């Protein structure tokens, strides 16, 4: 009996193979229960990424990937705690803006010398994508997309307000004054709000204000000096608050409510990211949803130069994994698999990072893609900082204080300036 058991154990070991690697993977994007392994049919960020991960787990020999349960709002807190406890996931997603915080401490593996061997062609990445994952001369991740703020447009309402040009494209404002004018036209024609966005929860309102600052060639800090209490910031904020003051937009909607207002046909424009283009396209095709004539526009230029908030998602490996060659190689194979499926991820509405995908017909044929082709050229973000999260939080708090609690713009900008300066000084 004993021999039989030992034999069975040995046989199992032989079948699974000594090289079988179980990798843990950490990501946000939300949960998708039945994503399957078909990467070409899933819809929405959560299901598309999970189908790619499931397919990698199924198709790569001797590698299984276990997706850890994580939550959007607390993702980075969880990842930081996992690193501090010495148990980071073997592969995890992060934003471009987090690279200084993680790579700066040596938490992330420098992949520069190993990407080619793993089948990842760095020369195929768009220059901005390579730039996004580079830090102090090393490559610390595999980029997956560029994402940016867009204007999602309900064309039926724009037609009702007379804001459509001869080519059938929406007429968007080119100055703060015109923004107010268009909003008034929308109100007069339909009684509805011109613009909706999440001004009450996530930092979408912050990204809106930042974009308007960049459009005036200003920024929130320069080196170690906060530059928030400025004329440019005041112009940016009042460009938005004039809509609230005139009753042409509602600052109290959170992410879900603002999205619902847009889908219900209660607001002509929703400011939100690239990540919802495929979802809204699917909703617009649904007869039960009020939104039916959906258009995606680049963030309009209200000041001197084009700019919209943008960031990148990328996949990284903890530096500690390099101590275990087999696991490290397995993790690289998963990154290569994700890199190979860049076109599938672009279905979400995100912009691809690989030249070969960007130039492909399949990419050009994605819904609404041609309508926001100008976004890549105007993509911007704040300067890199290890305190990015805290700085965003200060801005979100102070801007919300302006439009939700009636704090004066001068006080809010002065307070934001002082707090960001404190963070830069720490």
């Amino acid at each position, binding site marked *: 009996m004993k021999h039989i058991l030992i034999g069975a154990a040995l046989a199992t070991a032989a079948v699974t193979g000594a090289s079988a690697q179980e990798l843990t993977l950490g990501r946000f994007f939300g949960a998708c229960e039945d994503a399957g392994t078909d990467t070409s049919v899933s819809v929405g960020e959560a299901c598309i990424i999970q189908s790619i991960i499931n397919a990698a787990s199924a198709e790569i020999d001797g590698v299984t990937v276990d997706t850890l349960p994580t939550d959007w709002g607390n993702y980075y807190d969880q990842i930081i705690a996992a690193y501090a406890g010495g148990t980071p996931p073997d592969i995890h997603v992060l934003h471009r803006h987090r690279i200084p915080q*993680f790579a700066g401490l040596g938490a992330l593996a420098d992949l520069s010398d190993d990407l080619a061997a793993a089948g990842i062609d760095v020369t195929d990445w768009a220059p901005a994508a390579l730039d996004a994952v580079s830090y102090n001369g090393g490559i610390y991740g595999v980029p997956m997309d560029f994402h940016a703020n867009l204007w999602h447009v309900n064309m039926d309402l724009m037609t009702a307000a007379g804001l459509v040009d001869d080519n059938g494209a929406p007429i968007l404002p080119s100055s703060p004054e015109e923004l107010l004018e268009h909003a008034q036209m929308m109100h007069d024609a339909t009684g509805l709000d011109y613009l909706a966005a999440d001004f009450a929860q996530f930092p979408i309102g912050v990204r809106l204000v930042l974009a308007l600052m960049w459009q005036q060639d200003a920024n929130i800090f320069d080196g170690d000096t906060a530059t928030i209490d400025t004329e440019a910031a005041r112009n940016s904020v009042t460009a938005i608050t004039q809509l609230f003051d005139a009753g042409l937009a509602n600052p109290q909607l959170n992410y879900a409510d603002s999205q619902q207002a847009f889908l219900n046909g209660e607001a002509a424009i929703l400011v939100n990211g690239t990540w919802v283009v495929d979802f809204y396209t699917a909703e617009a095709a649904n007869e039960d949803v009020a939104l039916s004539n959906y258009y995606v526009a680049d963030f309009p230029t209200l000041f001197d130069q084009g700019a919209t908030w943008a960031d990148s998602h990328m996949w990284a490996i903890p530096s500690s994994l390099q101590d275990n060659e087999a696991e490290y190689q397995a993790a690289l194979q998963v990154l290569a698999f994700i890199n190979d499926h860049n076109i599938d991820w672009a279905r979400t509405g995100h912009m691809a990072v690989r030249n070969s995908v960007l130039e492909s017909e399949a990419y050009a044929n994605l819904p609404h893609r041609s309508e926001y082709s100008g976004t890549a050229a105007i993509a911007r973000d704040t300067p890199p900082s290890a305190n990015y999260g805290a700085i965003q939080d200060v801005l979100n708090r102070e801007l919300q204080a302006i439009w939700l609690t009636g704090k004066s713009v001068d006080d809010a900008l002065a307070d934001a300036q002082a707090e960001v300066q404190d963070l830069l000084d720490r």
Partner: protein
Amino acid sequence: MAIGGRQRNHLSQAQAAWLLLLPFLTVYGAFLVYPFFRGIWISLHDWNLLAVAFNPDAREFVGLRNYERILWGRNIEWAALANPALQITGMIGFGFSAFLYWTNRASRATAIALGLAAVLLFVLPGFHPGEGGRWYDRRFWPTVGNTILFVGWTVPGVTLSSLVLAAALNRETRAMSVLRTLFFLSQVLSVTVVTLIWQIMFSPRQGLIANITEAFGGSPIVWLTDERFAMVAIVITTIWWSLGIAMILFLAGLQDISRDLYEAGALDNATGVRAFWYITLPNLKRTITLVIVLQIILHFQVFGQSHLMTNGGPNDTTQVLVRYVYQTAFRDSELGRASAMAVFLFVIMGSFSILQFIIGREEEN
């Protein structure tokens, strides 16, 4: 000889006690005492959570600087009427507690506790940044204020509503035991479920409350993003969530009251509300104290409701102490500073525990 042998094999009472206590002491020491002192140790350092994980030498001993950075500021001055509303309330409170003590309406411990709270209310709000000064951490004291406000609304809310419920449900019928179970059920839910339920309830678009307001022709309140209602919303949620335990404690207290008292009272025409006021309440005094102190300690640790429902907003009006500790430690990686805040919270809760201990002892005497 046989007896001697048996004695050798037996442990003395003290040894047996230590042996039986050992498992508890080990766990208590490893998971409570050690982390507590470690927390104090960390609070004396400039300790970046991520940096120290990769390089244990990245910490620096800074003494009490973290405490100075959260509690103090530059050019801090004190004035008797810097915050008139709170400070005058404090003075009145002090006079009131002295009056209660001298007229024998309150025991010495209660009077001292009340007086001390009143003095703190007079002294603490008097500190403010003078000319050209500022708090080093501008968010800390407002956050402490929010937490106290939350406790100040939640604890009376829970105590009163659970007392009324317990009195109403203290009958031996099947319907009452079903109702008791129902009211207790909310207590077993986790904070994620509770906040999800109430986020839907409070939603201005699809929520039950908004639908009812609209049915009566009102415009719905945007509870969670309106400065005036956000704190109220999380207080309501918390009261609904934590009624159960307090209600059970009150029920146990009610069942301890002898039936004879009510019968005697009934002869003197004390029934219904009068019986509740003159018989039930005085006999529940100990339970009420216990419930209040337990609730105070519990609700100072509020985190989930604020974190999940309002993200501390709008404009920090629902930012509470534990959430600030959490953000400082895990978002900003500043473990030393976060530990200093946690020690501050411990001091607040510890003083309430001591208060309960004193009151409990006095009642026994």
